[in-house]
């Protein structure tokens, strides 16, 4: 069983980290970090399984607190009072089937159309405000056969590629280099900055001479260059700070769905417990997986188009059950990590769901959604109109507020989540 060297470490790590930063040349970028951090940090992990969840096995028939557990929720029964199920919610004006994977955390309307532009994702919205406090502002992860598609998008709607390898993330977070390689790394970061400085100057000169449309393009370039410079500078400072020590081996990347997913969830718990980040997104891209899942023999995407066939529905249920069992394991790990007087689960909002309400016909309405932990009064099924869905971005506003971010709006939200109360 992997465990963190000191379980009450987070607080101390933070204090130590804060002390170290104060001693460094004072960076504008880092200043907000030291404001009002009196209690242990709050966090979000958002997980999207990309091919939908069979509704009859997920949504309870009854609403409110006294609902009967459905087959999938049965796997989470130990945590019944620590999560809320939402039905009848979706992102307004999000259609376009699989292309809605890109909008799970952004809620940008009409993905898949020619003129579509994405907007900032929940995790990045939060990272812009609290990301400065941790070594990694936000972690974007993906469990996939190939590719590094992610749930995370910048404010200009550009996808941030996700990390596929738990081993590499682990190394970046926890494996310290020796003094020489740290120096070398810092040296490279500095060279990187001077390169960026020269090209930024060139872009600035060009911008002055261009027409408005072209200027906007160059402006985007210029902003990105400055942003990388800023990040390299912060990276330089972090490079010199000791990495937290965890006494678990480097995780294996794995080949099959369940081992990949398990490794990512373990990594998430470690990253939170060491306060290496407070924001994680995980896209579970099922396409192509089928091996080593009990009771599953058919490729996942294929299964999601079950076309009503009993055999496929059976396999699909097994595929989805296996994922819920992994989720239960994540809950358990977060629950058993103590932090001050609370558990990590108390301090971590776990958002789980899918961009598809129905994988069989690519419907994006009635998204299967669930929120656990993080300091909300849970234990109920909040049911909304299946015909005229309730805006899901409202939940995101509630989540951001619970994180301590003062915002009234996220994407197409109309308020905060109706019926969801905080402790």
């Amino acid at each position, binding site marked *: 069983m992997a465990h963190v060297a000191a379980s009450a470490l987070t607080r101390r790590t933070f204090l130590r980290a804060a002390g170290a930063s104060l001693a460094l040349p004072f960076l504008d970028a880092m200043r907000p970090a030291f404001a009002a951090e009196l209690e242990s940090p709050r966090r979000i992990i958002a997980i999207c399984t990309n091919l939908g969840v069979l509704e009859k096995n997920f949504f309870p028939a009854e609403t409110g607190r006294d609902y009967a557990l459905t087959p999938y929720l049965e796997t989470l029964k130990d945590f019944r009072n620590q999560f809320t199920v939402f039905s009848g919610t979706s992102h307004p004006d999000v259609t*376009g089937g699989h292309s809605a994977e890109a909008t799970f955390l952004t809620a940008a309307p009409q993905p898949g159309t020619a003129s579509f532009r994405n907007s900032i994702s929940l995790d990045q919205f939060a990272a812009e405000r609290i990301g400065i406090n941790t070594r990694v502002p936000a972690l974007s992860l993906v469990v996939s056969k190939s590719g590094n598609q992610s749930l995370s998008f910048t404010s200009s709607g550009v996808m941030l590629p996700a990390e596929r390898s738990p081993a590499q993330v682990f190394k970046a977070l926890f494996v310290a280099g020796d003094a*020489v390689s740290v120096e070398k790394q810092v040296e490279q970061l500095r060279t990187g900055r001077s390169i*960026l400085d*020269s*090209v930024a100057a060139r872009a600035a000169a060009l911008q002055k001479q261009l027409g408005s*449309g072209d200027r906007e393009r160059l402006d985007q370039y210029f902003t990105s260059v400055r942003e990388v410079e800023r990040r390299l500078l912060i990276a330089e400072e972090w490079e010199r700070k000791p990495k937290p020590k965890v006494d678990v081996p480097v995780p294996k990347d794995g080949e099959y769905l369940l081992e990949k997913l398990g490794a990512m969830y373990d990594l998430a718990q470690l990253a939170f417990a060491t306060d290496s980040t407070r924001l994680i997104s995980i896209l579970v891209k099922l396409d192509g997986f089928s091996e080593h899942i009990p009771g599953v023999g058919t490729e996942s*995407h294929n299964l999601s188009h079950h076309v009503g066939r009993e055999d496929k529905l059976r396999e699909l249920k097994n595929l989805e059950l296996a994922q819920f069992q992994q989720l239960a394991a994540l809950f358990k790990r977060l629950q058993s990590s103590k932090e001050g007087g609370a558990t990590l689960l108390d301090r971590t909002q776990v958002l789980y769901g899918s961009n598809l309400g129905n994988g069989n*016909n690519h419907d994006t309405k009635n998204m299967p959604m669930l929120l656990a932990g993080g300091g909300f009064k849970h234990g109920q099924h909040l049911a909304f109109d299946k015909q005229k869905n309730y805006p899901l971005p409202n939940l995101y506003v509630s989540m951001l507020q619970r994180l301590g971010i003062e915002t009234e709006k996220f994407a197409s939200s109309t308020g905060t989540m109706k019926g969801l109360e905080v402790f």
Partner: protein
Amino acid sequence: MLVMDQWLRPARTLSISLVLFTELSVVAAEAAKEFHPFLQKHCAECHDEDVHKGGLRVDQLSLQHASPDLLVRLFDRIQTGEMPPKKADQPEPAIRQAFLAELGKTVVTKEAEVAGPSGRTLVRRMNRVEYEHTLRDLLALPLLRVKELLPEDGQQFGFDKVAGALDISHVQMTKYLQAADEALRQAVVNVATRPETKTWREPAMRQDSARAAIAQKCCVPLNGRELAPGLTSLVAGNPVEDYGNSYRAPSFSGDAESCAVLTGVIGAHQPEGIQIDRFHPTVPGWYRVRFSAWSLRWERTHAVAAVRGMVRSYTSLGLPFIKDAKGHWQATPLPPEKLTPKGTINYECMENVEFYGTGEVTHIIRASLKGEPLGYFDAPSLKPTLHEFKVWLNPGERVSFHVMTLPGSGAPGGGFSDGILDYDGPGVAYDWFEVEGPLVEQWPPESQRRLFGETPVGKYPRSPLAGAPTIIEGATTKLPLADCKGAGQMLGAERLLNLNGTTTITVNCAVAGEYEMAVAAFETHAGDEAAKMTLMVGDHEMSHARFSVDALRAGPKTFRAKFRVDSAGPVTVGVQYVNDFFDEKQTDPNLRDRNLFLANIEVTAPKPSPAAAVAAKPADPRGLLLAFGTRAFRRPVMAEEIAPYAAIAEAELKRGASFEEAMLAGYKAILCAPDFLFVGLESGVPKPGAVRLGDYALASRLSFFLWDSMPDETLLELAAKNTLSQPATLRAQVARMLADTRSERFIEHFLDEWLDLKKMDFTTPDPNLYPEFDPWLRHSMLAESRAYFRKLLTQNLGVRELVTSEKLLINQRLAELYGIRDVTGATLREVPLPAGSPRGGFLTQAAVLKVTANGTATSPVLRGLWVTERLLGIPRRPPPPNIPAIEPDATGAVTIRQMIEKHRADAACASCHAKMDPPGMALESFDVIGGWRDRYRLAGSPQKIRRGNESVEEPSVLVVSATTVGYRSRLKLRLGSEVDASGELSDGQKFADVNGLRALLLQDEDALARNVARQLMIYATGAGIRFSDRPAIEAIVARTKATRHGMRSIVQEVVASELFQTK
């Protein structure tokens, strides 16, 4: 009115009319004052405050304030006669024309305002495909792979070339730094001398993978056509009569003339197939691979002509092995009576002789590297045939060979669990493999020359480090121990290392060459070994530099090691102490603690040599950067523009970096500069206002269009002479560029986006329903569509060939899929279209039919959408909100047609779907992999059903499986309901099947040409086609009429168009 007339031509013949004019609800209040008389008279009845059909209100519509998009939709409705509706009073033609002219003029003005001074197109960054190709061409690294490092690109108007979709984020920028670094490092070789080209050749049977395949029972050693002697059991003493037992693998360690493979996949443990694994490339480079192979039919002990027939497995006969003198079990030919299969057949299955007949078979071999195909090769029956190809190999890489036409060529599966000596079936023999290389055309390689010219890398003096001791040529210099850094401390005149660690000191070496370091050291002894030290230079050990310091204070010993310095400048040397030891239990305090003492360090520099004097010629960083920048920026570069990049290189040199490292930092900055990354800056900063592109910008627009990359020297020379923009020159250049192999990139990329071929791997066909789908078919599908487009270009065939053709361009695998006999081999060739065939054009090519289906079922909606959008150019609009999608159902309860009918019932759906769905219905005759079907396939084997008094089997189809092995390779699949491919277009024209649809699509070739011109123009210029651009598109349609809109003519006219040549 001349210009106006051009807008008045029908823009889209099948224009989709569903528009929710919702945005109109917000219109300036004063608009009412401008209520246009035409709208008042002809539109207000249905589109006023009370009724506002489709969400449109014209009583508040102001031409001046409405969005151009909305006005264009009005224009198209009125112009095509869709509005006012047929039953309403129609405006006089002249009045209609006048209103349309006014509307058109308003739109053009508005669009010009929207575009602003930047014009129709914007400067844009390269997409990642272009970025990779450009780096390949710039650095002469034809196989560079950096695309996957970069985030995926966005898309607009269907293409990843459009400025608005090509954003830059900090992630993109970070990845550019990384990708540039990786590419530049690959361009520089780390090998000092020109590598020697050698030829290696060995029998196939000697490869480890071939021997392993024998253990998997997938392979037989052959001499001539007979089983070669020497097959034994791997497990000593194990009776080989148990040959069929999968735990007891056979073994072969002798020599044989050939290695005959009997299955497409060699077991789960060897998915890489047969490899050339005894040749180990050590130098990255091009290699020429040759091999010889032939097809056969294996009959238990020997090979016969490769004819199709019964694939059989016999129960194990036991007797073919006897012990030899050494006690090994040896194979012997079976006695003839045992070869009579009577009564001993386990399983059998007839090959697909119904389709192929029993003539001789040519099997197909695929060579691949790391899963990427290198080529497909024919292996004729019993005729050893030599094949050859070129491949770039990195150290340790191996080429793999698979037979695509043997059972089990799909997903990795097992080999035969029964012995090969109990098996009759098809096979392919490899005789030998040959590798010649590395093929060196020049040295240093072109990639390094592109960066450093003739300058030998790593030989240039670097700035000395201030304060460090200098080691002069030929002299020996004593280093100050007190100045050493890192581990240890001074103890008197000596340096003590009492813990493991490295102590280092930096010295300035005056010249390049071989140096010697001498370290006088002793130890205080403890434990059972002497103190150990290693002499270091930089991060590396010097050669032969690990020493045991078996000397005490009384008599220090001197240890020497040599190291190379590539260029004059600072070098860090050091001593590493590796085996610290302390024994607290030791009673003698003098034997308790092992420590290392350094008494003296000296470094001796090489003697001056004439060669070093030549190499010390000062390098010219600015000159090199200027030359590189000029190519990278695709235009002449001023010396002062290079200054910032030179400053980076110089700063690195000052810091003590090597010449190579410093220059790479400078090159990296160039590769991250906007001038490199952005297309459209080549003729200087574009002047506001729609002006013609300068010749350099034109050269880049042309090369990024047809080569997905930077212009070559010819284009840049023409640009320098300002002659590129001359029409005749431009025509000649387009012809030259299309003939160049780089135009393959255009074909691949354009079709990937236009026809959606990039979606080839989005879904995998359900192996239970389509077990015949295999990697060769997948490859052939893409190859067909690409080669077909190449043919349209080369032969300048007209747009009608998009939907029909007289000849097919297919190979054996596609012929099988299309049901066409007598096509043998892997190469695509022209085959006359058989009478009555449903094939022809992109419309019915397997690749298109595959990308428009999911792996299980087809949807007429998606295929219909593909036809209307990709072939007819009618853009889709998103469905109205809160409309659930159709739920696919293959339980047989509801047919797809019944579900589609629902679209007709709902008016909101019908307005689009009435046009979208029908072409898709015609394509229902094709399954998800593009095969013809009369009935839908169902999972499972056919069941007995009662028909009247009889018990009959359900309809079924016999399918060759790509994933199962040997005798299990043909499966019977259930069939369901019959396909009905008839339909009716929205204008009432009926068709019975796909050929009927084809005829209807061919009625309007202008529409097909208009769409191709639009798609090419978007792709070529990176901007959408606006209303104002319609005349230019119509001009292309008109000018290509003479060739019936030949594909090459359209490309030529796109380039000749003012849209292409202006900003």
